[in-house]
Every structure is written in C-alpha cells, then in structure tokens.
C-alpha cells in the first residue's frame, strides 16, 4: 500500500502550478485534499510521476459571497462548507450535501473543487453542483475561463478541463427566490459512496411558486446528471403531492444507471423516483410552513 515513486512540487502560486502542468502534461496531477487521489495512488491505480500540491497557494482557500453569488476557493475543505452556517439562508444545498460526503476525516481534507475535477459519477458534490447551476473558474496557460456545470462533466472521471488547467474556484449563482434544498442519499453504510444520490434545490417566489428548480443525480450514470424535464415541470408551480409524483417519475427517466453490486439498474432508477418524491414532499412541508395561511 505504498504509491509508486513520484516527484512532489509544493507550488506557491497558480501560475507556478500551471507551469508545472504544462511541463509534465499527463504525467502530472494536481493535489488539493488528496482524498481520492492518494488512495488510488496507494492502490497503484494511479501513478502520476509528479504531484503538484496547491495547498500552499495563497488565496485559494475559503468562500466569499457577493452580489453575483458565492465563490468557493479551490482548496476550501468540505468541512469548512459543512460548518458554514452563514450560507444556510441562501445556499442551503451546500449545508445539506456536505455532511453526506464520506466521513469526517475525509471532509477535513477533501475539497469541493477537487471532487468536481475528479468527476466520480457517485460523488455528492457533482449532483449538488448541477442542481445549483454552478460554474468553475479555471486558469490555464491561456488565461482564465469559466465552465458551466452542464458543460463540465464529460464522462466517467472525465471533465472538460484541459491537462494544464486548474480549477481556482467554484461559483454558485445567487438564488432568484427563496431557496429550499435537500440532499438524499442511499448508502450501504456511513461513509460509503452513493448507491443513489439526489440533490434538490428549489427557489420559490413570494407566492410559493417555484421560480428555479435544480435536480442533480449522483451514481446513476457515467457522470453526475441533471433532470431537466423534471425541473421544467416544477417551474411556476406550487408543490403538491401529485406534482411531486409526476416530477419524480420524470427524474427517474433522466437517470441512466447500470447494474452492479449495489443494485440493479431498475432499483437505482426507482430510488431516484422515491428520493425525488420524498425530497419534494419534505420541501413542500417546509415551504408551506413558511407561507402565511392566506397564501
């Protein structure tokens, strides 16, 4: 359980990191929390010859809110987001999702940007990122660009990042209405990867109608998936039991699972249905609890 030999570069700036990546190409790997990469290296599934460590780069850690939304630096730990109480009002999905990631040890080290870049289809952040219509800020030799969630994930463990690009931050847009969110996960034991994960984010107008809907799905496809038709069915509607049923069925159709040790494709698809329905039902109760009786 020892990794193959590798060179370790503790870079001090993003530019230095990009230089290293440009020099070493696919032989180099960026490390932030290392919670996926290091186990893979110890199993020798991954054997990068150069590790570029971002942890000493100043300015990459922590989150800030501005008028446009929330910016989460690339080396911000899961645990920092799990405990970010000020985000509860506008970004409740962050707080709902973070506690489901692996275990406290992993959450103390792992990062959201690293998880997204790793692009494990079963990762919890992928589903939440899609549901929130997030973007990643990316820096490479040619400068900076941003990539929207829908364009980011390409396939299993594959993103649209170039080999010499680094995610510097994750951006989440400011909600257009009052947000209510939940994350539901079926895991075989605590700390397990999702058998199925469902991220629900609704932004509700003052009349209790859904202005913006995000439904992200984990572990039911080669990459994290969004359920656009299910989302569309929610827009402009007040939540009801029947609407939740209809939306849940649409979300299940968006899933593209495969059968494995964790269950059959049919089972996983049905878990999407059950979780979307349960999740929407819990959000409906929260929304109705906030509405004045007359509304």
């Amino acid at each position, binding site marked *: 359980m020892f990794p193959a030999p590798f060179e370790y570069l503790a870079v001090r700036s993003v530019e230095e990191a990009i230089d290293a990546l440009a020099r070493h190409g696919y032989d180099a790997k960026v490390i932030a929390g290392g919670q996926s990469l290091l186990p893979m290296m110890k199993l020798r599934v991954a054997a990068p010859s150069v590790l570029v460590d971002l942890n000493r780069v100043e300015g990459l850690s922590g989150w800030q809110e501005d008028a446009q939304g929330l910016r989460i630096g690339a080396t911000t730990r899961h645990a920092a987001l799990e405990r970010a109480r000020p985000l509860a009002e506008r970004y409740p999905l962050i707080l709902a999702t973070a506690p489901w990631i692996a275990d406290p040890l992993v959450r103390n080290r792992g990062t959201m940007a690293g998880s997204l870049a790793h692009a494990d289809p079963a990762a919890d952040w992928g589903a939440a990122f899609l549901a929130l219509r997030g973007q990643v800020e990316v820096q490479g030799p040619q400068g900076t660009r941003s990539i929207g969630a829908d364009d980011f994930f390409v396939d299993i463990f594959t993103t649209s990042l170039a080999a010499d690009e680094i995610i510097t931050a994750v951006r989440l847009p400011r909600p257009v209405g009052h947000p209510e969110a939940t994350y539901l996960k*079926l895991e075989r*034991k605590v700390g397990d990867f999702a058998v199925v994960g469902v991220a629900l984010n609704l932004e509700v107008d003052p009349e209790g109608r859904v202005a913006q809907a995000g439904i992200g799905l984990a572990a039911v496809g080669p990459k994290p998936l969004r359920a656009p038709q299910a989302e569309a069915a929610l827009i402009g509607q007040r939540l009801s039991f029947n609407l939740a049923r209809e939306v849940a069925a649409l979300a299940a159709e968006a899933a593209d699972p495969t059968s494995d040790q964790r269950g*059959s494709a049919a089972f996983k698809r049905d878990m999407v249905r059950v979780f979307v329905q349960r999740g929407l039902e819990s959000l409906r109760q929260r929304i109705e609890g906030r509405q004045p009786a007359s509304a």
Partner: protein
Amino acid sequence: MALEVTEARPLGKPIKRKEDARLVRGQGRYLDDIALPGMLYLALVRSPYAHARIKRIDTSRAKALPGVHLVLTGEDLAAKNLAWMPTLAGDKQMVLAVGKVLFQYQEVAAVVAESRALAEDAANLVEVEYEPLPVVVDPFYALEPEAPILREDRDPPSNRIFHWEVGDREATEEALRRSAVVVKERIRMPRVHPAPLEPCGCIADYQRATGKLTWYVTSQAPHAHRTVLSLVSGLPEHKIHVISPDVGGGFGNKVPVFPGYVCAIVASIGLGRPVKWVETRTENLTSTNFARDYHMEVEIGATEDGRVTALKVFTIADHGAFDAAADPTRFPAGLFSIVTGSYDFPTAFAEVDGVYTNKAPGGVAYRCSFRVTEASFLIERAMNSLALRLNLDPAELRLRNFIPPEKFPYRSPLGWTYDSGDYAATLKRAMEIIDYPALRREQAERRARGELMGIGVSTFTEIVGAGPSHTFDILGIKMFDSCEIRVHPTGKVIARLGTRHQGQGHETTFAQVIAEELGLTTDDVIVEEGDTDTAPYGLGTYASRSTPTAGAAAAVAARRVRDKARKIAAHLLEVAEEDVDWDGQRFHPVGAPARSVGMAEVALAAYTNLPPGMEPGLEASVYYDPPNLTFPNGAYICVVDIDRGTGQVHVRRFVAVDDCGTVINPMVVEGQIHGGLTEGFAIAFLQEIAFDDTGNCLAPNFMEYLVPTAVETPRWETDRTVTPSPHHPIGAKGVGESPNVGSPAAFANAVIDALAPLGVTHLDIPLYPWKVWEVLRQHGITE
C-alpha cells in the same frame, strides 16, 4: 459498572480489563510495532487471474533494483521442497505458484528489500506471463463431469475434496415420508471474511550463529504453528521460538499458516537477516482465509401439531482452491452435525461435499467452532419456514420442540452429548424482556396499515471447547490445553497458558479464575500467553475453546496449588492438614477463624519455612483434556422495520439472552456478545466476498467489504440465564462465538417475518436493500 482489579473474590464480577490500560493508550505491542535491527521487508507478487498457466516468470528487473536482496519464485521453493505446504485440514497448498495459479491474488513470487515501499516497487517489476484457463466459480458446476479439474496434483483427479455424512439416512428418509408436514428450503450462507482490524503478518529472525529461528507472528495458535513449522521445515522444534505479540483480533483468521509466513522464514534463513511480512487489507480479504460459503438444502418433517420428526441436510461446501480450513482431523465439515440445534429430533441425517473452485482457500472457523454458524443458521431458518407452513408462531414452535431440561445429558441423533441447558427458560426470558405478545399485537396493527414490521427469533445451541482427546486432534495433536501457575515468595502469581487471546480478555478473566481459587485479587495475577519458550503447550484460542480447556486447566492448576498451600498452612497454623479450613480467602483452623494465614504468607513459607520433607516452591502445571464439549445456548429476538421505498431494513430492537454457564466476568461477556452481534449484523445485511464469472474478487477492500460502524450498528440489549456445565471445573461454557453463531438467523428471520404476508419464505443473506426492494417490486407494493 466496572470494578477495580484489586477486588477480592473476583469470580463473576465485572472487573476492569487489565489489558486495556496498555491497549487504549496505544502501548500495545502488535506485530507491526516490532522493528529489529537490520530487518528487511517482504512483498508478494500475486496473480491477477483466477486460473491460468504460468508461462514465464522474469525476475531480472526486480533483482536489479538497488536495495532488493532476494526474489523467490515457486521454482526456487520447489528446489528446497517447499513449493507446497500442508494445510491444517490435511490438504496441501502452494506456497508460491508452480505451473499454474488457482485463484485471483494467489501468491506467485516474493520480493525482499530494504524497505516495504521498495519491496512493493520491486514486486511490480516481476514480470509474469500467464495463459488464462477456464475458471470454475460455481461449486455445483465444479462437480459436473465437463468441469475442468482444478487440482492436477490430486489423485484421482476430481474437484470433490471429500464427502462426509453423519446420522441415519434411511431412518431419516423414512421418517420424512411418514411426516404429515415436510418443509424444504435451499439456504445459502455466503462467503464472508473475519477481517480482523490487524491483518496477518510475521517477522522471521533466523540467527545463523545459534541456528535458532525467532518467529514473531500474528497467531491464535503459536504452539501448533511451531510444531507445524518444525515438521515442514526440518528445523528442530526447540530451536524455533514463536512469539505471538498483542494480536488485534483473529476470529479464526489467524489460525492457519499462510504462504507469506513460509516465504519470510525461507528468506530469513537464506539471508541471515530478520524479514518482516505484513499483508495489506486487500491481501487479507482476498487471500488469507475466508469463512462459510455453504450451499445448504434442508428438509424438516413435523406432525400437524408441530412436533419435529426428522431433519435431512445436504450441503455443498465451497473451499476454494485449497482446503485450508482448520477443522479437527475427523471433522472435514467441522461440527456441522450440531445442525439439529436445540430441538429434540428423533432422527437426522446430514451430508457435506467439499468442493474445489477457483477462489481463495479456506474456510476458517470465523468466530465459530468449525461450521457451527452454518449449522445454526440452517436450523434456525428452517424452523422459521416450518412455523410459517404450520401457521404457528415461531417462538411457540420452538417451545414445543426444545430438548427438555430433564433430558440432559442429551444424546443428539447426530452423535453429540449435550451437557446442560434450559432452553425454554432462556427463550422465555428474551420474550419477557422484549414483551413478545405486545410486539405481535403491534405487528398485526402495522400490517393492517400496510407497514412492514418483522420479528425474528433464533434459539441456537452451540458446541464449543474442542476438545476431548478421544475425538479431537489437529494434524494428530490432541486438542487439550494447559496452564502453569507459579506463586512467587510474596504471593504474586504468574500464570501461563497454551492459548493466545486476541481481544477476548484472558489477561483478566483467567486471572479472575486463578485469583478466586487462591484467595487473591486479579491484580495479584499476571497472565501470559503467546510465547512458546515460556508457555506450556496448547492448541490455542479459537472456537470458543479457551475457557472450556485452558480456563479449566487454570482452575485445576490453582486448586493443585491450593492443595499444597493447605499443607503449608497447616504447618504454619500448627494443626493437622485435615483441620485446616479454606474460607475462600484464607486458611484457618477448623472452628477458629480468628487465627488464619493467607496465600501471601503461605507463599513466603513455601520458599522459607517448609514442613519437613516438603519440596520447596509453590507451583502447578496442568494439561486439561476436557471430558466433553460444552454447549452454550441463547435466545435472540430481533425487531425490524422495512422502508417500503428503499428496501432498507432498520433493526429497531435486538434482545440477546445468552447462557454460557458460569460467568467469569459479566462485562467481558457482554463485550463479547456486543462484538459478535455486530459481526452477525454485518453478515446478515452488509457482507459478502463475491466473485464475478471470471473469478475476480468483488470485495477486495473495505469500500466493498462493508464493516459496520457505530452509526449503523443496532443497540444491543443483553441478558443471561445461567446453566453451568456439569463437567467443567467452574461450570463455564465459553461464549465468544455465540453471538456470531446465533444472530444471523435472528436478523434474517425478522426480515422474512416482515415479508411473510407476501408469501416469502426465504431470502438469502446478505439482505441488501435492493434484494428486499425486488421482493416489494414483484408484489407491487413499493412506495
């Protein structure tokens, strides 16, 4: 509440575990904590194929790596006649593959280098060319005529390892034909792994100058390992010093001898330097022994009013590529013939066929006296199916069929003599604690609302303490065990036993037994195990045998010490020996309790002031050959609720009433029960070492082989009844494996009870959510 180790009359009291003071401070000394000067590290090259011919092995790149001292292949070992080694089950196993590999992750080459990392780097440089062969994963297919023969070394060529049967086939079949009701069920107990927290490993330290091999090893049976090693290697036994340091859990995994051990020893002898080998988690799960893997078929007959008439069992046992079980010689299927359980069957018959497949070798007795868990699971599941068929409450069916207390000692139709038990009392206690009638009423109400609630009952009988020398041996060595007690001049005691604990608490419980007999406190007694140069010979710790064998030896040895002490006390008190009374703590003249001497004064006199003609010293050594096995029992009741949306099972309550005879330390017993129930829960709901069609192991790490944490582990409610063993010196029966043996059926029965209204009579464990969901889907009742 835990009591201090200085408590007087400690037997039966919750004395704090003496070993915990060092273990919880991180001051235990486990195998991998040991580093010897000049030590080298060994890594193994393993096969990626489950069945393949080895065409070529090229070790040149590995040997060329600076810091590499040795690379061994099967051919190198064959030159020393060590390519194969005997297993404890009487089969043989390849140390390093010669000619072909028979399971994925099989040991193919060994690399010894300056550091562990370097050894792993070099192992990756060993090039092996394989020619894949057809793979046999299904043990039923293995017995088909067209299946490839896996073990070319066997004569006659066959994938059948053994056929074993017990009982009266004709009488049983006749009784089944005459039975008003016969229930038949196919029940699989899947392949699981003991997965101790500390994996297996060793350090071989051969000194050329003295010709002595010191072998530090994670061993549950250090004396047996020394003898086996001597027989295999030709090294004289007195020049092999086996030290089993603190062991981080064994559960049967650390009974066998593994190829890595042999390679480390060969390397150390060859290089004249200490060589350490410690397996990784993946190596542990994929190559060092699995457990269970029994495919069972049961027929149970009964009268209309629910009296059992006959039991017939047919089993295919998947042993993998080598029969590396550690069963006693005469028992290739272990003590599976306990399968009639707690019930008074007039007749029974059981047969087991052991089969080779392209899987890792085994199967060890995982927290179980040799296949008792399989037997218990089978009978407890079958009784549930019978209850369903008869439309009888499963608790009631059991109460009608228990062996009654007056029938003990009870001769079972499959040949065992049960020592003692009051099974109805144990079950009734469990039913009372959980308020069984109220649970059944609640279940009826919930069922009416469409909810899925289940109640599972398991009333198992165990068979432990192997074993009497007329029946039990391993490789010819009788399965007695031993204790040597030395009382030093100030009355302090060092006791050494032939067993080797791995977390069971022997340092405390055996000290309690000895202190109780000698009028001392647990603090006065140090218990040492695991060093073959100092401890008396014994067969080790597994199969809940330590208390029935070595524990008995400890009590008998202490009584011998006390017998001599009484003579010395008479001398000190200046009365005749027959006029000396022992009150449990001190000797005094009969009728004169005011004058007395304690063990400390007696001990001093044993070295300073002896009666004329008496040999100095105060010690005793006992080799205890148990007259019979012991038969602990228990009644477990489990309550579950099933999530109709996800198929997840929530264990709401679990009551475990155990009867292990006399209890030495109730806190230690409770700890054993908690641990074993947690394992049983994992076996029922989480764990399986599964394989794909090409023999790839699908659970090679803790991401796929799921070990429960505190989060998912249910809350356990424990209690006990006490029916002492009539033949054990203090009436103790052993308890470690009971919860693992008895609980899987309680969980499974509860889930099946919840689904019974749908017509479900059986589901194979592990009861994953998707399996339960599939049942719900088929019946159209998902959320």
